[in-house]
């Protein structure tokens, strides 16, 4: 069971990243395009998405915790740089989310102008796709390592 621990954590991280991509698509693309087409005020856009943005931040924190736990439970030590890489990207995503939120608060309170909003959503989406790729690569190597270990035991 202990051997499979890292694989389970990696699968959880993969599911979490896919859910996060889904949320970012909804708030930064789907609703954002509605806002652009309908010429919404910033308050209209932000009050439609702020709950999902908070959810996204909570999921990012969970993803960061998972990556920290994965780092110390790897069967193949060569995967460690990959996990450190995804950990760093997730940290970057969280920083971008916080910057985005602070910019949104400023725009909502003082400007209410959609054009003034700092758009960094593109980087969050790209970062998440890179995380998914890294998780997939690590998952493949880890599964091979787990299989090799169980075959050696037999």
């Amino acid at each position, binding site marked *: 069971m202990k051997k499979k*621990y890292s694989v389970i954590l990696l699968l959880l991280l993969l599911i979490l990243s896919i859910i996060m991509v889904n949320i970012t698509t909804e708030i930064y693309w789907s*609703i954002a395009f509605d806002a652009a087409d309908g010429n919404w005020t910033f308050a209209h856009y932000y009050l439609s998405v702020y709950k999902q943005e908070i959810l996204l931040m909570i999921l990012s924190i969970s993803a960061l915790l998972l990556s920290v736990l994965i780092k110390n439970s790897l069967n193949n030590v060569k995967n460690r740089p990959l996990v450190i890489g995804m950990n760093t990207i997730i940290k970057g995503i969280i920083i971008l989310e916080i910057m985005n939120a602070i910019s949104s608060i400023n725009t909502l309170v003082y400007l209410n102008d959609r054009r003034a909003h700092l758009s960094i959503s593109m980087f969050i989406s790209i970062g998440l796709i890179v995380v998914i790729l890294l998780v997939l690569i690590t998952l493949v190597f880890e599964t091979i390592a787990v299989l090799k270990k169980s075959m050696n035991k037999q």
Partner: protein
Amino acid sequence: MKSFIIVSLVLIMVGILLLIGYKKLFKVNSKNALADKPVLSLPDLNDLLMWYIYVCLIIFTSLGIHISVTYHDQRVSKCVEEDVSVRGITSEYPLCINQYSNVVFKDRDEVIQKVLLNNEALIEQLEKRPPIATDKLDNLYYRTEGYAQDTDEYKLHVLLTIYLNYYEIKTIENSIEVIK
């Protein structure tokens, strides 16, 4: 400000408790390792610390978002002129004029539920067409545009315009005829 101080104190307390818990687990692990017993795979302390700093940052940001949304609600919902009526809209939906000279509903959430309930048949008919926007109310707003004044679609459009006035913090040129 008060909520920020309370949250900071709670986060400091939780942080101290986490550190104490980690130290105890680390001691147990060290004893087990010396006795050749299986050990728990604990995360590195620096990673855990960084994670907790990010948790704190996100909690503060979420609190900031909540405060700004509440602030927006307070300034837009504040009525300057009560007992306002709009042509074609019954007194079933209480209205007022806010500080930005826009007509808004007095109790927005309750009124919009009433609007949806009272226009159920019409909404069902409008929703059969392919959607223009992701949100249900925005979709209905665009779908009811351009109808003649006496139609049900026009009345629903006026109600939805008033509903969307909640998002305006500037005086808008209102097409709604207000009777004071």
